[in-house]
């Protein structure tokens, strides 16, 4: 199954299971989504539960919030994650703070899915990796799968979660294929996965950076360097335990982040490891990130900006030097 099909698969699984699950967004119904990730849902569940909206990001996310506080479990789509900026008030001030401000009176079981990140040559306003924006807001959970299997399991878990979850689908991964087991797939949020084991260094990656980290690991292996690759899978909750346990074995930490450098998720992870596990480290923590720039459009420029396999290899070598 493709990463793209896993989205519709997971939504269908949850809508079939729970009649309170509804799905709204721009062009998500009749058109099946601009990335064709939600094809078939309108036919199967009808226009009451799968609803095409106007181009009104605030109204979409506000509707999801009001519905979530009154008994539904909405899934809303923000077509491109850059557009979160248009409705950030509803996300960051309304949704994220509601439970806290009301002393636990309001619960918001909702999911906002969005196509995130670069690789499609769409230019600066349709390509940014904004998962670190979300991570900075208390009250949100932040998930970013790297495989079709994880889209299925983590999206289902996000729908069932009692907290608001921002679910970042990396748009260059949509055509990627992977096994998705038959039957119901549901994961637990906040569990990183060790996707390759090696004793020389720990490389932590997210979403589209996971396959790149794995490729880098193969190249390094050919040179006799064995790295562990951790797929973080979610930023909130952040699975520090898995990362720290691996660093305790390898003594080296490299993060691979698509977000621009400043305040990227790796900065938080690096600070935790430095503060709590300094004496497990045998070399500097290295962060491989997109430089602190908006993403350029041209293929050569975009490729130069995003962390490449070569830069990951180089980052690991720097950590080991």
């Amino acid at each position, binding site marked *: 199954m493709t990463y793209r099909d896993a989205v519709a698969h997971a939504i269908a699984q949850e809508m079939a299971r729970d009649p309170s699950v509804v799905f709204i967004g721009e062009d998500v119904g009749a058109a099946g989504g601009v990335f064709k990730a939600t094809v078939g849902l309108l036919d199967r569940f009808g226009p009451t539960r799968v609803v095409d909206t106007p181009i009104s990001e605030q*109204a979409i996310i506000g509707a999801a919030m*009001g519905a979530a506080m009154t008994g539904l479990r909405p899934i809303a789509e923000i077509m491109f994650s850059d557009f979160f900026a248009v409705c950030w008030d509803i996300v960051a001030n309304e949704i994220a703070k509601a439970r806290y401000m009301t002393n636990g009176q309001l619960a918001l079981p909702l999911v906002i899915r969005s196509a995130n990140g670069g690789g499609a040559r769409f230019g600066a306003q349709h390509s940014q990796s904004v998962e670190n924006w979300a991570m900075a807001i208390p009250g949100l959970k932040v998930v970013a799968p790297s495989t079709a299997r994880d889209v299925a399991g983590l999206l289902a878990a996000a729908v069932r979660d009692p907290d608001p979850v921002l679910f970042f689908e990396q748009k260059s991964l949509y055509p990627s294929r992977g096994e998705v087991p038959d039957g119901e797939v549901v994961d637990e949020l906040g569990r990183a996965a060790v996707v390759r084991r090696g004793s020389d260094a720990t490389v932590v990656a997210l979403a589209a950076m996971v396959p790149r980290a794995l490729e880098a690991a193969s190249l390094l292996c050919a040179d006799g360097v064995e790295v562990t690759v951790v797929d973080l899978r979610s930023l909130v909750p*952040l699975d520090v335990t898995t990362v720290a346990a691996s660093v305790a074995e390898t003594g080296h930490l490299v993060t691979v982040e698509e977000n621009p450098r400043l305040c990227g998720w790796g900065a938080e992870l690096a600070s935790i490891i430095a503060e709590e596990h300094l004496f497990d480290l045998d070399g500097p923590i290295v962060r491989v990130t997109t430089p602190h720039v908006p993403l350029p459009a041209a293929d050569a420029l975009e490729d130069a900006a995003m962390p490449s396999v070569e830069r990951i290899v180089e980052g690991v070598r720097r950590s080991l030097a």
Partner: protein
Amino acid sequence: MKELADLATSASHEAAPPPRDVRLRIYARMVEMRDFEKRAHDLFLQGLVKGTSHLGLGQEAIAAGFGAAMAPGDYTFATYRGHNHTLARGVAMAAVMAELMGRAGGLMAGKGGSMHLTTVGKRMMGSYAIVGAHLTIANGAAWSAKLRGTKDVVVCFFGDGATNIGAFHEALNLAAVWSLPVVFCCENNRYMEYTPISHVTAVEHPAADRAAAYGLSPVLVDGNDADATYAVAVAAIARARAGEGPSLVEAETYRHGGHSRADPGKYRPEEELQAWLSRDPIPRYRQRLVESGVDASTLEEIELSSARAVDEATQEAMASPPPDLFVVERDVWADGGSSWRR
């Protein structure tokens, strides 16, 4: 003022006056709101209510009229100027007062404050302090009520200033397109914080004149006439409950005090203020009740019992201890805690 005088004659006398018991309930509520907010203001000046507070003094006829027209299952969404809308749903005064004072016994144990009063159990779904945002959230509750097949209606209050923010447009359009059971009520008190709405708005009636853009009929009502606001609320809520879609009501009113805190409101012309003070919704309603044959002792009893209730609520709030500090890290997430890692 001319058009308001017209409104007063048109809107309030078109519909038959509400029954006597409803009128007495509305009167009692308005008196309680007034007494409560005056006390809140005193306590603010004494430094016992901290931070900020936005009073609805002078605007009570809207909260009370709508409150009387709503069924227990209907939902309220309000702004930071939300004390009256909270009291209108029958929320205990002492808990509201304690919240204003930052005490453990507050409605949200001190975590929300004056601008975020919420009582989900009474379907007071929150007071929101980012101008305009809650109109979109009110839609969501209305959509949910509709999908779940309930007959519950949402009433969403907001200020005149909110009509110029994008969320207003997005919310009104979506409510109309989805034919949602929601009543949007603009409390046009003529000012945003300090700037008159007329200085920054392309139309005369910031809400009503825009209704047509959403396929809605303009509804303009004298917001200082509780019979009129009640009548308009009954009609709009009935329409929503019958599945006939949203309404946009503009209630013209005036705040007696400043925008917030200790603002004396000196940016407002004295004649304007005096004209509106003479249209104070409470004495006006009282007089109407007397003229309709309610005896003075009934009204005095209402007034005394309100004064007593506010005194008791104040004492109860004062007796409430400060919040336990552990709540700072409670209820960020559904597990009750604030831990973002494992």
